[in-house]
């Protein structure tokens, strides 16, 4: 049993963090979020060269041979950096395509950074479940920055290009300027069926979204602690006041609770643990809570500055809000956890 990253995993994490700190400082995030297509093309190329999109895939599929645990580390870093763009969709699509022998060429384009995918999470089958997909799905994250869509239906996994006949996409400005929303409208689209279990992909997506939320929670904590050490009022740093200090302690505790849960869930995915579904629900509920509560506290800890557009506090908070609805809200995950207890006695 070992739930701490080993030296190799620490090296992976440090490399990712180093590149993001270098290429994607806050000023760059703000440039990218103002672009027509909010994804950083240079960073995307660099990420592809470093193999980030295939970190979790076997080497035969062109991946790095690691697993969900390493992908989890990647998404914590992406959350910390508030990275704009369809990272989650691309990584999930790579997983889905890697299991389908007929899709090797497309997979190579995803891994090579020349194709980006959004994910349409459709557990209730709004888009239908026939060979032809019909319907409208709102609130698809990063749709405008993607070239293709991975559809996770109730029972099937579909793959379509935005350029396919019958696919229309409307970009909708949303609360989070770094992750634009889109409405996906399909009329009689013959999406390709992938040989991939949508439930397993949804669980992976849930855990990676949770990891991203841990990164957001962690960044909010660090921002508050840095500020509390330097901001002076009444002749001393505000971090000496227990009202601030204790709030920071709670932010740290929440982050560690979430990190532990998400780490277990990711390792459970790799270990094919029979309780992995429960862990994924728990991880998402706790990580989103940590992200939301920490980002709110971070606005408060920054006082008037926290209320400005100039401060990053609002970007963190808005990302947390977006993640709450990515692969299910806290309420949905708690209901899923409670469902087995509520069956008739």
């Amino acid at each position, binding site marked *: *049993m*070992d*739930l*701490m*990253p*080993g030296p190799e*995993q620490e090296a992976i994490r440090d490399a990712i963090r180093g590149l993001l700190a270098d290429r994607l400082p806050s000023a760059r995030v703000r440039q990218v979020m103002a672009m027509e297509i909010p994804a950083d093309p240079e960073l995307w190329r660099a990420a592809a060269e470093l193999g980030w999109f295939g970190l979790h895939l076997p080497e035969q599929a062109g991946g790095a041979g690691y697993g969900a*645990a390493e992908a989890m580390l990647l998404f914590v870093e992406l959350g910390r950096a508030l990275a704009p763009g369809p990272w989650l969709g691309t990584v999930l699509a790579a997983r889905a395509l890697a299991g389908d022998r007929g899709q090797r060429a497309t997979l190579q384009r995803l891994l090579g950074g020349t194709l980006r995918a959004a994910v349409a999470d459709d557990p209730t089958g709004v888009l239908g479940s026939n060979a032809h997909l019909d319907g409208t799905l709102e609130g698809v994250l990063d749709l405008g920055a993607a070239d293709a869509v991975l559809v996770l239906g109730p029972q099937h996994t579909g793959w379509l290009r935005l350029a396919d006949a019958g696919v229309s996409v409307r970009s909708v400005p949303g609360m989070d300027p770094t992750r634009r929303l889109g409405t996906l409208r399909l009329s009689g689209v013959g999406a390709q069926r992938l040989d991939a279990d949508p439930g397993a992909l949804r669980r992976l997506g849930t855990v990676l979204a949770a990891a991203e939320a841990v990164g957001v929670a962690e960044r909010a*904590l660090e921002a508050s*602690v840095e500020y*509390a*050490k330097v901001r002076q009022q009444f002749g*001393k*740093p505000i*971090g*000496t006041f*227990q009202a*601030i*200090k*204790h709030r*920071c*302690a*709670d932010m*740290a*505790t929440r982050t*560690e*609770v*979430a*990190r*532990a*849960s998400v*780490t*277990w869930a*990711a*390792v*459970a995915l*790799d*270990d094919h*643990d029979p309780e992995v579904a*429960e*862990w994924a*629900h*728990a*991880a998402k*509920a*706790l990580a989103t809570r940590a992200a939301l509560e920490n980002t709110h506290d971070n606005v408060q800890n920054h006082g008037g500055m926290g209320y400005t557009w100039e401060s990053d506090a609002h970007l963190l908070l808005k990302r947390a809000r977006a993640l709450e609805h990515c692969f299910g809200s806290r*309420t949905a*995950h*708690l*209901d899923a*956890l*409670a469902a087995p*207890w*509520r069956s008739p*006695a």
Partner: protein
Amino acid sequence: MELRFSREEEAFREQARAWLEANVPRGPKPAPHDLPGRRAYDMAWQRTMFDAGWAGINWPREYGGRGASLMEQLVWYEEYARVGAPEVSTGFVGLKHAGPTLIACGNEQQKAEHLPRILRGDVVWCQGFSEPNAGSDLAALQTRAVIDGDELVVTGQKIWTSFGHIAELQELLVRTDPEAPKHKGITWVICPMGVPGMEVRPIKTLAGNADFCEVFYDGVRIPLTNVVGRLNDGWRVAMATLSFERGTAFMSEQVRLARRLDEVIALARRARGPAGKGRAIDDDEIARRLALAKAEVDAMRAMTYRTLSGTARTGMPGPEGSMIRLFFSELVQRIDQLTMEILGPAALEGFDLDGVPEAGWSERYLTGLSQTIGGGTKEIQRNIVGERVLGLPR
């Protein structure tokens, strides 16, 4: 990273489980207020473990312990809690505090004299740290000890001394140098109980029990050979084992809490709903609060595992132990409060005229209120996290 234990660790688990299942006492437990009965029960069980070689699972072999690895300790405590083996209770200070302190800081004679007696269940220890004016600010303690020949003469008062009325020995902090800065003039000494000049008065708690006491010292004489570590070095001695305790104290607690939550969920499946109709579990709010508690109890296990993983790698528990402590104490109380709501008016029943509850939900709820006070209040825990983990200014 991996969840699986090694084959050797799994073999150890089988061995531990088999022994525990065959030997855990199944008879009735003594009532919470029956202190002599509890003492006899706890010490008999300790002796059973000692005779079979399971006592002092993490203590070095040379002092009669089992010398188990960190992962084996985890496995042992998990199995221990899973079969519902007795909580450490009256043995707590000896096994979890005084014993480890002696191992870390005692001389050979002190170790040889005391460690086997603790492991065999021959002796109950209590703690004399807190004072009426030295609680969270422990280093402000004022109980004086002056050297007279080859003895210390102690005058003062201690409080919150659990099991002081049934203990033979006490780990006692006294001020031996009133001129020194407050952390520097303290000495850690082994004090025999029931000696001339000492008076022990039980304190009744809000839960109706009298587990802890006040202890008064009026010229109590203690041989200087009972000093552990050096004179005036008692603060360091007292802190020597604290971080380790914080890091590993939760191996069994996380399993016990998970079992308890399972019982609360089962209760919610049979208790009537809050509006008097249906079952409690059919209420969305109760179901979600239970689900959140489930997620948090799972996370508690994951945090424990992570801390142990880090400790196994570095040899030292990290500061995140204080976060586990804070999280755990508040989580227990959230679960207890939710249990009270699920029980409804039935939570109010089962008390005698002295206010003493029967063993059960309400008793646990009331005793659980001490979780965020004893051993460092939750406010002190937050200071520790803020200052030592996050580096915020004092």
